[in-house]
């Protein structure tokens, strides 16, 4: 027995007139999900969720773990006229690790990403980013899909998803479509989703090459912080340590998370040992378009982008 289940006697019990008034109805309620009210929709199947999404669109606020939505509506919760809760849909919580691709359900939590050894082995950038997200409490509730759909430029999983060339599967009652991660984000907290769509899965192709990757998150403290900037750097190498593919993705340094193509073009085709880490860092600092805000100035973000890029490449060169 878990320790938290001991000491059953002598605890303060739940009480209160609201509770007592409803107590006698407990039996009638059974265990069914409270579906059916237009104010709170909690479908158990994906089809039902898509149907609700089609019928209510933006009128029903979609909620998963709530770690962004509940903050956005803090002090304004009563303004929400209807909720569409996705937490009962088991199909969205699955992870599949195939030989060609990895499919992660949109409702997979950060805690799952941080602790499942399959994620750590195959997608270390994502596992690391998830393990540094918010706090334990946030990781328990917050979902991969939520981080994507919120589309903050500072979303911690977004640079890793760009580096892994992820594709997002969007569903609606009329079918599904796939959007590449780099085409998905259109501005701060803006993306290409329509009001009748839900994010269903994230598809990540399995790389056949040997890969090296480095994740870096910079913030004012380690826990519960919105990142000042993030970087996910991934190199594919052949047997002679020549870089056959390079992906350098950055977060919180532009209106959307972005890939630094000049950095990637510079790195591709060179032997890892020949690469000038400083040159790559300078290209990265030039390519981003940061703003000054409470989490850092433009000058700071360019300098740190340069520094963490250099540091990551030097680290990779030293093996």
């Amino acid at each position, binding site marked *: 027995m878990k320790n938290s289940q001991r000491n059953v006697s002598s605890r303060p019990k739940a009480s209160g007139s609201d509770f007592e008034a409803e107590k006698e109805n407990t039996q009638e309620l059974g265990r069914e999900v409270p579906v059916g009210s237009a104010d709170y929709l909690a479908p158990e199947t994906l089809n039902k969720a898509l149907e609700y999404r089609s019928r209510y669109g933006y009128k029903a606020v979609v909620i998963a773990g709530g770690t962004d939505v509940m903050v956005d509506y803090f002090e304004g919760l009563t303004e929400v006229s*209807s909720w569409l809760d996705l937490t009962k849909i088991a199909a969205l919580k699955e992870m599949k690790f195939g030989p060609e691709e990895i499919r992660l359900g949109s409702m997979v939590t950060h805690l799952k990403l941080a602790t499942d050894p399959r994620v750590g082995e195959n997608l270390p950038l994502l596992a690391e980013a998830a393990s540094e997200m918010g706090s334990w409490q946030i990781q328990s509730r917050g979902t991969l899909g939520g981080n994507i759909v919120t589309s903050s430029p500072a979303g911690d999983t977004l640079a890793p998803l760009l580096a892994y060339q992820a594709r997002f599967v969007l569903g609606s009652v009329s079918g599904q479509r796939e959007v590449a991660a780099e085409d998905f984000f259109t501005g701060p907290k803006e993306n290409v989703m329509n009001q009748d769509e839900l994010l269903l899965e994230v598809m990540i192709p399995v790389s056949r090459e040997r890969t090296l990757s480095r994740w870096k998150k910079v913030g004012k403290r380690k826990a519960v912080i919105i990142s000042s900037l993030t970087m996910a750097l991934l190199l594919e190498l052949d047997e002679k340590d020549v870089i056959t593919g390079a992906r350098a993705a950055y977060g919180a340094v532009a209106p959307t998370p972005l890939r630094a193509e000049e950095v990637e073009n510079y790195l591709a085709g060179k032997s890892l040992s020949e690469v000038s880490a400083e040159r790559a860092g300078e290209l990265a600092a030039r390519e981003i378009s940061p703003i000054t805000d409470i989490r850092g100035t433009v000058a700071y973000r360019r300098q740190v982008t340069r520094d963490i890029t250099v540091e990551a490449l030097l680290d990779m060169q030293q093996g």
Partner: protein
Amino acid sequence: MSKVKVAFTLNDQEVSLLVQPEERLLDTIRDRLNLTGTKEGCGVGECGACTVMLDGQAVNSCLVLTAQVYGREVRTVEGLGGEEELDKLQQAFIDHQAVQCGFCTPGMLMSARALLDDTGSPTREEIKTALDGNLCRCTGYKQIVEAVEAAAEAEEVD
């Protein structure tokens, strides 16, 4: 707005009630069910004072809609120990003077309890990580981490 019927397990007790769709678990626990051990600090998931266990995991009850816990198991600080027998964590917090004003303590205890239920003998780093989302403005954390270590050791002996 029409109310939503919600039934869940709270500290091993079956509860059912009607809630507003936008009602937070924190408010249901404190204001409707009169269990005021759980505290509200920031209300936006940054301070951890409202931490409860949901199906064994530490969560911020200010960020959970009560309607979302239908059929699930919630544990608050009142579900740890009673006056006759404290939870080992509660006793360790007292022994190590890990409580000063006490406002953060229920949340600290619930994060620590979720950790010890999950990881029998955590390292100091694991304890610090588990308590990352709980702010204390009095004690300085050292005593809190030591208390959790002591409780973990005491439970191993059992």
